[in-house]
C-alpha cells in the first residue's frame, strides 16, 4: 500500500513539469456548485443504507416497513392486529405489495406526510419502545417503488365507521422531500377502521432463510398476539392464504414514554436541548427534560460546573456544557424507569414457541431490564430443542429487536455474537470452535429497548455494547443450563431403558442354558429368569 503511493508520487512530478500547474476551480466557481442536499435525494443514491441494496432485499424491506408501521399503530390503539400481506406479480420483475391492517387508521391530513416525506413520524422524538424509530421506513419504501417503477404509493385508510375511507395516490418530490398528491378520492370499505398500503416495485421474490415467508413467520413468533394472512405471488383471491395464527390474545404491555437519562446524553444533544427547552433555569431544565434528576441533583450538577441553579439554559456556553456533562458522568444517578419497555415475556414466548415450533423441549427467560449509555434495555431468550428440528444442522438463531425479526447480517450482530460466545458444549450440545452449536436447537434472541443501537439505518444488526452482550450471555447461559439438565435427564432415562431391554433380552438365555445343563422344568427355569431379572433391575437402580 505504502509502496504503491510512493510509486505514483515519483511519477507525478514529471507530468506536473510538462503542464504548468493551473488552478482548477476557484472558490467562486465552487460556490456555484454548493447547494442543499435533500434527504430524499441522499437516500435515492444511498438506498443500501435503508435496506434496498438488492431486489430481494428491497421486496422484504418494503413489507417489513409496512408491517412494522401497522403493528405499532395497532398496539398503540390497543387493537389485536390482523394483517393481510399480499404480493402480486405486476409483469416483468415487478411486484405489487399490499399490506392491509385493522389498525386505527390515519387522519386524512396526515397521510401525505407520513407516506410521502422522509424523516416524518411520531416515534423519533420519543423515548419509548417501538418498532419504527426514525420515520424513514415506509416513505423510503414508497420512494424506492417510485424510483424503479414510476408508480405512486396508494394508501387507503379509514378511522371510524362514521367516516368514509380515503384513497390517496402519492409521489415524493425527491428534491424537496415533499409529498405530491396525484389523486384523492373516497372508496368503499367494509371494515370500520384500518389502513391499506400498496406499493409497486421492482424486486425478486424468494423463499428460504432471507425470504418474506420466514420474516412473517418470525414476526408472529415474536408477536404471539398477531395474526397474518399471507398471499404469496401466484395465488389468487380464491386460494386460501398462508395463515400465521396467533398463539395468544393478550396484547403486549403498553410501553410508556420516558425522558432521556443523563448518562445517555452527548454534547450535541445537550446543546440542542439547552437551546430548545422551555425551562428558564438550569435547575428546572434538568428536572423536566431528564429522567431521574431531582432538585438536589439538578442543583449539584449546575453548581459543580461553576454555574448556579438559576442560570438560564440558553446562556450556557458550549465549554460550560462540556463541564456539565463531565459532572453528570461523575454523579451517581439512579437507573432510568423501566416502564418504557414492553418485553414479550416468558409466558408469551413459551406459548408462541409451542404454537409455531414442533419441538420436544421449550424454555424461555426474560431478564430484568438493564441500561446501556442511559438507555434502558431488556433481553429475552427463547429455546426449543428436539422434535422436528434438524438434528444434524447448526442451531437456528432467530434474532429480534423490539419484536422485529432481523434476517440479514447475522454474523455482524451482537445477538449472534452472544450465542457464539456461550459455551454450549457444557450444556450437552455439540459446538465446533467459533461456530454455532449444532443439533435440533432453535434460539430466539430478543432485545427490547427505547433505542436499539443498530449498526446501520437498515436495522439489520445490533451493535455490541458490553452491557448488552453481558445481559444476552446471562440469558443464554440460563436457558443453556436448564437445557443441559434436561438433556442429561433424557439421556439417563434412555440409558436405563436400554439397560432394561438388554436385561430382558439376555436373561432368558441364562434360563435356557441352566435348564439344558441341569434338566430343569419349565417352572424352575421361569423362576430363575424371574428372580434374576428382579435382582438385576434392583442393582441397576443403585
Amino acid at each position: 500500500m505504502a509502496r504503491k503511493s510512493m510509486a505514483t508520487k515519483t511519477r507525478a512530478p514529471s507530468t506536473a513539469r510538462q503542464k504548468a500547474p493551473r488552478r482548477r476551480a476557484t472558490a467562486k466557481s465552487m460556490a456555484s456548485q454548493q447547494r442543499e442536499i435533500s434527504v430524499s435525494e441522499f437516500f435515492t443514491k444511498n438506498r443500501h443504507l435503508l435496506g434496498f441494496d438488492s431486489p430481494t432485499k428491497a421486496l422484504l424491506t418494503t413489507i417489513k416497513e409496512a408491517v412494522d408501521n401497522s403493528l405499532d399503530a395497532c398496539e398503540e390503539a390497543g387493537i389485536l392486529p390482523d394483517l393481510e400481506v399480499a404480493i402480486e406479480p405486476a409483469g416483468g420483475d415487478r411486484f405489487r405489495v399490499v399490506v392491509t391492517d385493522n389498525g386505527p387508521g390515519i387522519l386524512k391530513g396526515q397521510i401525505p406526510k407520513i407516506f410521502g416525506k422522509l424523516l416524518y413520524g411520531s416515534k423519533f422524538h420519543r423515548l419509548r419502545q417501538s418498532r419504527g424509530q426514525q420515520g424513514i421506513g415506509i416513505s423510503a419504501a414508497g420512494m424506492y417503488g417510485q424510483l424503479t417503477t414510476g408508480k405512486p404509493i396508494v394508501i387507503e385508510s379509514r378511522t371510524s365507521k362514521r367516516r368514509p375511507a380515503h384513497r390517496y395516490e402519492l409521489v415524493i418530490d425527491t428534491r424537496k422531500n415533499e409529498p405530491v398528491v396525484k389523486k384523492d378520492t373516497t372508496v368503499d370499505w367494509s371494515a370500520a377502521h384500518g389502513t391499506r398500503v400498496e406499493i409497486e416495485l421492482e424486486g425478486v421474490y424468494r423463499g428460504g432463510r432471507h425470504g418474506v415467508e420466514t420474516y412473517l413467520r418470525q414476526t408472529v413468533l415474536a408477536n404471539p398476539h398477531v395474526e397474518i394472512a399471507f398471499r404469496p405471488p401466484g395465488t389468487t383471491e380464491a386460494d386460501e392464504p398462508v395463515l400465521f395464527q396467533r398463539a395468544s390474545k393478550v396484547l403486549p404491555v403498553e410501553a410508556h414514554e420516558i425522558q432521556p437519562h443523563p448518562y445517555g446524553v452527548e454534547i450535541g444533544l445537550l446543546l440542542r436541548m439547552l437551546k430548545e427547552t422551555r425551562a428558564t433555569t438550569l435547575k428546572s431544565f434538568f428536572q423536566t427534560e431528564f429522567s431521574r434528576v431531582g432538585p438536589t441533583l439538578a442543583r449539584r450538577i449546575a453548581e459543580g460546573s461553576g454555574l448556579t441553579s438559576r442560570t438560564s439554559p440558553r446562556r450556557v456556553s458550549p465549554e460550560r456544557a462540556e463541564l456539565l456533562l463531565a459532572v453528570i458522568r461523575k454523579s451517581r444517578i439512579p437507573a432510568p424507569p423501566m416502564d418504557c419497555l414492553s418485553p414479550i415475556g416468558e409466558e408469551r414466548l413459551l406459548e408462541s414457541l409451542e404454537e409455531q415450533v414442533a419441538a420436544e423441549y421449550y424454555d424461555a427467560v426474560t431478564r430484568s431490564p438493564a441500561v446501556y449509555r442511559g438507555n434502558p434495555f431488556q433481553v429475552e431468550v427463547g429455546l426449543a430443542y428436539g422434535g422436528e428440528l434438524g438434528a444434524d444442522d447448526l442451531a437456528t438463531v432467530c434474532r429480534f429487536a423490539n419484536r422485529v425479526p432481523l434476517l440479514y447480517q447475522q454474523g455482524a450482530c451482537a445477538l449472534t455474537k452472544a450465542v457464539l460466545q456461550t459455551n454450549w458444549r457444557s450444556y450437552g450440545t455439540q459446538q465446533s470452535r467459533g461456530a454455532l452449536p449444532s443439533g435440533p436447537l432453535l434460539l430466539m434472541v430478543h432485545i427490547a429497548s427505547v433505542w436499539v443501537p443498530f449498526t446501520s439505518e437498515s436495522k439489520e444488526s445490533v451493535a455490541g455494547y458490553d452491557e448488552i452482550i453481558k445481559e444476552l450471555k446471562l440469558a443464554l447461559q440460563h436457558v443453556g443450563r436448564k437445557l443441559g439438565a434436561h438433556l442429561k435427564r433424557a439421556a439417563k432415562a434412555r440409558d436405563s431403558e436400554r439397560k432394561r431391554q438388554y436385561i430382558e433380552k439376555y436373561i432368558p438365555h441364562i434360563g435356557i442354558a441352566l435348564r439344558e445343563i441341569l434338566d430343569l422344568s419349565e417352572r424352575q427355569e421361569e423362576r430363575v429368569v424371574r428372580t434374576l431379572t428382579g435382582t438385576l433391575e434392583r442393582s441397576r437402580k443403585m
Partner: protein
Amino acid sequence: MAKKKKAAKRVATQSTRSSTGTTPRKTRAKKATSKKKAARDAPRKAAVKKGNKKRSPRAGKGTQPPVPGAWKVIQRISTEAESVRKKILAKRTPTMQFPVRSLSNVVYRPTSGFFEMKGRTKERTLTVGTVKTFAQTLRMMAFSKELVESDDIATKREAYYVSKNWQECRFNEQPESDTVMEDVEALFGVNREQLGFIPEEKGGDVAGELVVVDHDRETGEELRIDCTRFGSGAYSIPISVEQLRFETKARFILAIETAGMFQRLVKHAYWRSANCILVSLGGVPTRACRRFIRRLADAKKLPVYVFVDGDPYGYSNIYRTLKVGSGNAAHMNEFFCVPQARFLGVTPQDIEEYDLPTHPLKDVDIKRAKDALKNDPFVRHHKAWQKALQLQIKMGVRVEQQALAKHGLNYVIDEYLPRKMANTGAFLP
C-alpha cells in the same frame, strides 16, 4: 410385569424348539433321560478312554494330559451351573471365577520347564454390562455338555455356527465364540477336546527317520507309518496324538518354522544325511504339534532343535510357545510344551557371521521385542535371550530363514546346518 414374564417365557420356549431341532435324534432322547442315566453311561466311556491309555504305556506318568472321563466333565459343568442357579435363587448376583489368561498370570519355572499359572483369577459377575457374555458362556457350557453326552465333536467354526440358533445370544464373529470357548476350557482346567471342541487347524508335517504306530479307527488294526516313505510329501500330525507310539533311531528332531524351508530339507533328504526327524511348525505351532514333538522327544529321549526366522515373532511367539507354552492356554501348558527345545537359529549373531541380507525391523517387531523384554517371564529368566533381543533392536534388522539362499540354494544344507550342529552347546536356551 405379568406381560414381561409371558414374553420371557415365549422366548425361552422358542429357543428350546430351535436348539433341539438341530440336534440329532439320539441327543434329544438322551436329554430327556435323567442325570442318573448320564452317570450310568459315564463308566463305559471312561473305560474306553482308559483303554486308550493302555495302548501308549511308554508315555511317562504325569506327562499325560488329564483326561477326565466324560461323566466328570459333565459333572463339572453341572456343578458350575448349579452354583450359578443357587446364587440366582438366593437373590445374589452370580459369579464365575476364570483364571486370567495372559502372560501376566504365568511364571516360568526352569525346573519344570514351562509356564505355570500363578493362579490369579478374574471374577465375572453377572451385571447389566456382562449379562450377554455370561449368557453366552452358559450356553456354550450347555452345548459342550450336549456334545460330551452324545459323544460328538464340533469344530470351533461349527460351534460358532451352532450359536446362530441362540437368537440375541449368537456370536457375530468367530473370534468371539473362540474366546468364550477358551474361557470355558480354562474355567474347568481341561483340554478343549474334552469339552467336545476340536480345532480347525492341522497339526503340522513330519518327515524323516520315524515310524509312527497308529491304529485303524474301524478295525483296531495296528498301522505302521514310515515317515521316510512319503517321497516329496510328509506325514500330517493328527489332532489327537495321545494314542500314537514311535519307533526311531534318529539323533534329533528339527522343528522348522516355514513350509518352504521344510520342503527344501525334505527334497534333499537332509533327514537322511543328518539322521533326524523334520517337523514343519507352520508358524506358531498348534497344540497337537507341540504335544506330538513333546511325546516323541520324551519317548525317544531326543533333543529338539528349532529353526525359525530371525525376528521377534520367531523368537518370542513361535519358539517360546513351543518350548514353554502360552499365556492364553496356561492351564494346559504342562502338556503342550517342549522344555527340551533349543534354539538353533536364525540368531541375530548369524546375520553378521553368515553375512545375510536383512530387512529393517518394523514398528510392530520393535514393539514385540520390547514387550518380550519387559513382560515375557521366559525372556526375563534367560540373560542370553535378553542379549539376543537387545542386539536385534540395536541392529534394527530382521532376517528370514530363506535369506541363506543368498550363498546358494543348498548352502543351508551343506554349510549352515552342519556348522550349527557341530556346536549344539552354543544354542540359545
